[in-house]
């Protein structure tokens, strides 16, 4: 085999690997994480699925989501005397893999509801399958506006949508930070580009000069991009999902003596990882470590899984909604099915939740009165809630 053939084969291999999204091994496996307890006549037994990026480049987010779902199930099983188990599905944040996982879930009659998937693009891909199977699914991180326009009647989410976050953040920047020019950098993912699209019109309408840049989530060297920040650009907007990248961006800014303020969206809400002093971060939930009612959950999560960011708690809320729906079905003397669990989820009306706000869904599956919170990072790395937000 001559050299050019080898290189061509290698290039195909590399592209194939890239197409797999740097993923880690497992394909779209759907494996049971906990065994279903033996059935007795009075036991309330059910399985729920979780779809998330459990491996691959954003596995850190997916693992956090899985941990909080497991935590919710453990606590709810103990509180409600139920025997709910979780079936894991690794989507690697890739719509095609999410479809395969969903097909496995919909063909598994034991699964009565699903938490996830994580990404808006995945919800778009699996929505019709879930609807056809009558399977309720609740995402704790998909924020695209288009998801709750009625296309997917079994879809719900425990986070607010981009049409709330993007303009809210942009207006804060315009009215409070008042930059004459700014840099906004997307990370080439749908979450990020969607927010950028929502923010740029607000900036332009305010007469702010916008330098729109783009950098892959997989890049960790931002020095060249940071060198482009001009003295007039006093704000850098990072609608990113990987907090460690934003931390490095801030470090590169310090190294190159750039004084712009970083403004991150909810994907960067990660105390302990992103802690550039003076930066702003918005979040679909408050810092649960500061909510006294969440102390037990926070302690359990810290003890079992270490530090966590913003992606776990909304999944805890989603799993809790499903667990309560299953428990209410059992209490009414019925066996949990997809139909009665879906109906119970629609009736959800929790006066408070791990997110520090009530959980109730409107007819489109959106959170009623969902909002975003804004934090400023102090010199000690703490996230301080800005009251007016």
């Amino acid at each position: 085999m001559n050299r050019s053939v080898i290189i061509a084969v290698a290039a195909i291999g590399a592209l194939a690997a890239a197409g797999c999204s740097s993923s880690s091994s497992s394909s779209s496996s759907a494996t049971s994480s906990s065994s279903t307890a033996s059935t007795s006549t009075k036991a309330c037994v059910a399985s729920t699925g979780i779809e998330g990026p459990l491996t691959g480049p954003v596995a850190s987010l997916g693992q956090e989501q899985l941990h909080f779902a497991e935590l919710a199930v453990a606590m709810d099983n103990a509180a409600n005397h139920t025997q709910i188990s979780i079936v894991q599905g690794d989507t690697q944040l890739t719509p095609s893999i999410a479809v395969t996982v969903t097909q496995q879930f919909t063909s598994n009659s034991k699964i009565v509801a699903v938490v996830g998937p994580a990404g808006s693009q995945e919800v778009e891909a699996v929505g019709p399958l879930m609807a056809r199977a009558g399977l309720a699914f609740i995402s704790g991180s998909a924020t695209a506006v288009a998801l709750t326009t009625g296309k997917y009647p079994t879809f719900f989410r425990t986070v607010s949508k981009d049409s709330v976050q993007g303009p809210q953040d942009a207006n804060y920047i315009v009215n409070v930070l008042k930059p004459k020019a700014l840099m906004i950098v997307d990370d080439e993912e749908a979450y990020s580009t969607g927010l950028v699209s929502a923010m740029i019109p607000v900036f332009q309408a305010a007469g702010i000069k916008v330098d729109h840049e783009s950098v892959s989530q997989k890049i960790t060297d931002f020095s060249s991009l940071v060198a482009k920040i001009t003295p007039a650009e006093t704000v850098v907007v990072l609608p990113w999902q990987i907090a460690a990248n934003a931390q490095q961006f801030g470090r590169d800014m310090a190294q190159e003596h750039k004084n712009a303020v970083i403004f991150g969206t909810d994907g960067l809400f990660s105390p302990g990882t992103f802690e550039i002093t003076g930066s702003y971060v918005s979040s679909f939930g408050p810092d649960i470590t500061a909510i006294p009612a969440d102390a037990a959950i926070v302690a359990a999560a810290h003890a079992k899984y270490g530090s966590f960011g913003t992606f776990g708690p909304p999944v805890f809320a989603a799993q809790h909604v499903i667990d309560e729906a299953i428990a209410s079905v059992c209490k009414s003397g019925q066996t949990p099915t997809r139909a009665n669990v879906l109906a119970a989820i629609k009736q959800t009306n929790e006066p408070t939740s791990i997110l520090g706000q009530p959980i109730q869904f409107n007819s489109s599956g959106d959170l009623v009165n969902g909002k975003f919170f804004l934090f400023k990072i102090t010199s000690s790395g703490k996230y301080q809630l800005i009251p007016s937000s």
Partner: protein
Amino acid sequence: MAFFFQELVNGITTGALYALVALGFSMVYGVLKLLNFAHGDLYMVGAYIGFFVIRWFGGPTALTIPVPLLLVIMFVLAAGLVGGLGVAIERFAYRPLRNAPRIAPLITAIGVSFFLENSALLLFGAQYRIYNTPDFISFSTGIRIGSVSIDAVQIMCLLLGLMLMVGLRLLVSRTRLGKQMRAVAVDREAAEMLGINVNFTIAATFFIGSALAGVAGVMAGLLFNQVNSTIGFLVGLKAFTASVVGGIGSIPGAMLGGLLIGIAESFITGYISSLYSDLLVFALLIVVMLVRPSGLLGQVQLQKV
């Protein structure tokens, strides 16, 4: 002008990293004609070793040993352990396939890459591990000329990278082991008949190439502060591109290719837009391949008929 030099410094630093990883790619290809796609993951393992060394010695804010000693331990340990891992991979994954069709070790290499990536995920978790370099090497220890900033870590990584590249060049061109490597690269069977221990030479090649990836991993951790099980993929792809641009199998070519890609990325980001960085870098690869299919410093192989 300051902006130009800032981007040049940034580009050379990134390019030196690519070059170190590309060297391993090129060495292994030169000797075995194997594209070792697991090479980027060895870089990831090196970065993890550096991280755990920092933790073992008290963490970035409470180091129990002087910083220079810490750095020496990080680099030596990463080079040694990753080099050893490279030798083990060669022994158990590639050597049994040495006489198989070339597609077999190529697919095995992709398999080894996924194996390493997922092993790291299982062992170390999915979260990003942060070096926090500025906590023990302050930015103020660097150089500032006008508005061009070069911090101490950048200077150290550049110097170390250059030293390793020159050292490798000397090793290959001036030492007995280097001659053996070149002989095995030209004709493995003939080298064996001349009494060269081919297995040892190939293992040594893997050790050196992998050790360079391990060192590059520590450098990346110090420069970019973070390590995660997936960081090797993109760097591996860029290093592969660098070695192809430079002329795969050519050591100076790998250095040139790495630096060229690092600088190109930096200037494209700085002067055009980061939106087009990867697009233009890979367009550069296509142009080089069209103009010089064997790479900038690669040699055209004659086909005997």
